[in-house]
């Protein structure tokens, strides 16, 4: 009995060690976004709370925490409450299989890539149920848009991942990273890297594809009726998904924890440092895109997903498998 208790305690502590830094990372990501966007607009950004505004995110969180939770009388109460919880939980699930360094991963399963795909395809549910249950036209339209968008871009993401898997020959995330020891896949598969990044923008509902919460048309999309902690959970889930998307870009294309420069002073730097650095660089790209580009129209978004990315990634899949088969490079 005591054995199982220790086992459960071990699991709980490990998950906390994964989740708490993630949430702190989300807090500082919001700060980073506001600071970077401010610099690009030539403003100062948040600089009052704490040194350089370092405590701004926590002040915002506290504000959301003490506000009143409003339950619309016409809403479907149970699903209305469950939807943000589902979104938040699902955004935390996937972190169990992400390898941060050589051998530092919570569970090292053989189907890690599929696990990421499966769990991130569940993210739709939180959004679609929130839109339906809040019983408002804005929320419903926003959630339908969001669901259609996420499903469309999952297809091209899946095919791009297939190309990466053909090159690496394994569905284990650690082995995908290890197979990039000679060259990162961002170099030979550069068009796929760009397409994966853009699909990631659409998958996480970031601008220029933030149609679901287009504030000019649909007040705030699926989160219109939410206040206080419900809204905060949506927000946390969205930003955790952003970090997740940039870590997957790092793992599939930028060589995970592998050091880019392989001689003495740099090879002493631990792997998780490189991992964090690459992830932060991709996150910076996410924010940069938001500051630089105007929003897409919805039919343009769908056209890009189905008529440009899908045929192009299918073509690359055939091309890569042909090259690997012809030159006998298949693992």
């Amino acid at each position: 009995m005591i054995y199982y208790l220790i086992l459960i305690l071990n699991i709980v502590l490990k998950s906390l060690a994964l989740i708490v830094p993630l949430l702190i990372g989300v807090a500082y990501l919001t700060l980073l976004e506001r600071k970077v966007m401010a610099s690009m607009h030539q403003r100062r950004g948040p600089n009052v709370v704490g040194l350089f505004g370092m405590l701004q995110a926590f002040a915002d969180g506290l504000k959301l925490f003490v506000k009143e939770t409003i339950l619309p009388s016409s809403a479907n109460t149970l699903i209305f409450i469950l939807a943000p919880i589902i979104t938040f939980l699902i955004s935390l699930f996937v972190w169990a299989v992400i390898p941060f360094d050589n051998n530092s991963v919570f569970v090292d399963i053989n189907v890690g890539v599929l696990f990421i795909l499966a769990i991130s395809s569940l993210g739709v549910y939180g959004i679609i149920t929130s839109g339906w249950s809040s019983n408002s036209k804005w929320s419903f339209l926003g959630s339908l848009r969001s669901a259609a968008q996420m499903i469309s871009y999952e297809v091209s993401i899946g095919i791009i991942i297939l190309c990466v898997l053909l090159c690496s020959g394994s569905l284990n995330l650690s082995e995908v990273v290890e197979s990039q020891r000679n060259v990162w896949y961002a170099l030979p598969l550069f068009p796929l890297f760009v397409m994966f990044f853009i699909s990631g923008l659409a998958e996480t509902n970031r601008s220029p594809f933030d149609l679901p919460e287009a504030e000019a048309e649909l007040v705030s999309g699926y989160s219109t009726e939410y206040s206080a902690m419900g809204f905060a959970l949506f927000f946390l889930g969205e930003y955790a998904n952003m970090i997740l998307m940039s870590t997957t870009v790092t793992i599939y294309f930028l060589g995970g924890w592998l050091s880019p420069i392989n001689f003495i002073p740099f090879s002493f730097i631990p792997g998780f440092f490189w991992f964090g650095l690459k992830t932060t660089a991709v996150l910076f790209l996410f924010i940069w895109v938001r500051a630089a580009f105007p929003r897409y129209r919805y039919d343009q978004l769908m056209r890009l997903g189905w008529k440009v990315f899908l045929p192009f990634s299918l073509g690359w899949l055939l091309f890569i498998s042909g090259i690997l088969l012809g030159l006998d490079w298949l693992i």
Partner: protein
Amino acid sequence: MFVENIFFFFFSSLSIIFSFFVIISKNPVHSILSLILVFFNAASLLIVLGAEFLAMLFVIVYVGAVAVLFLFVIMMLNVKVTKLTTSIYRYLPISFISGSIFFFEFLMLFYLDLVSVNVNYLYLFEDNFVNEWSASLAPMGNIVVLGQLLYTYYSYLFILSGIILLVSMLGAISLTLHRRNDIKKQFIYKQIERDFSSSIVWKH
């Protein structure tokens, strides 16, 4: 083994409870959500069995695609909460007959004893180590074994199922494909082609 049994009974009882909810809940959206939970528990049962690849496929295909489409359709149809006008006891005889047929089939299946899959024809086991097949299967993982079978012995069936899916997809597309001339469309290539010399015409 003890923990596995606990997990098995946990997931299977949950899936029975939620499939009951699928039938009795009056709101169709609630039944779809319970159906999703049933899919989830089935995937968890597959993980308990050690078939992690099938479990992930189950989640991706059923929960990630099929159930989302169900949910979409039901939300768009705007089905009101259905009132049960007729008594559910009307269906009791039919359900009793079909249920008992199902039950006896299962009984016969278990009575005949479950026979394991003949692994001799897996060409990976050239030495015919039948008594050690599970040990040699373990380090390979699900996907490798499935791939070895699917692309060799069952390649015809694999291609056939692909063709069936293609035909059904073409059917669905051809149902929705009708051109209308009275709507304005954006032609991206024409827009990009336009430059100063082709768009401004000097008339005199």
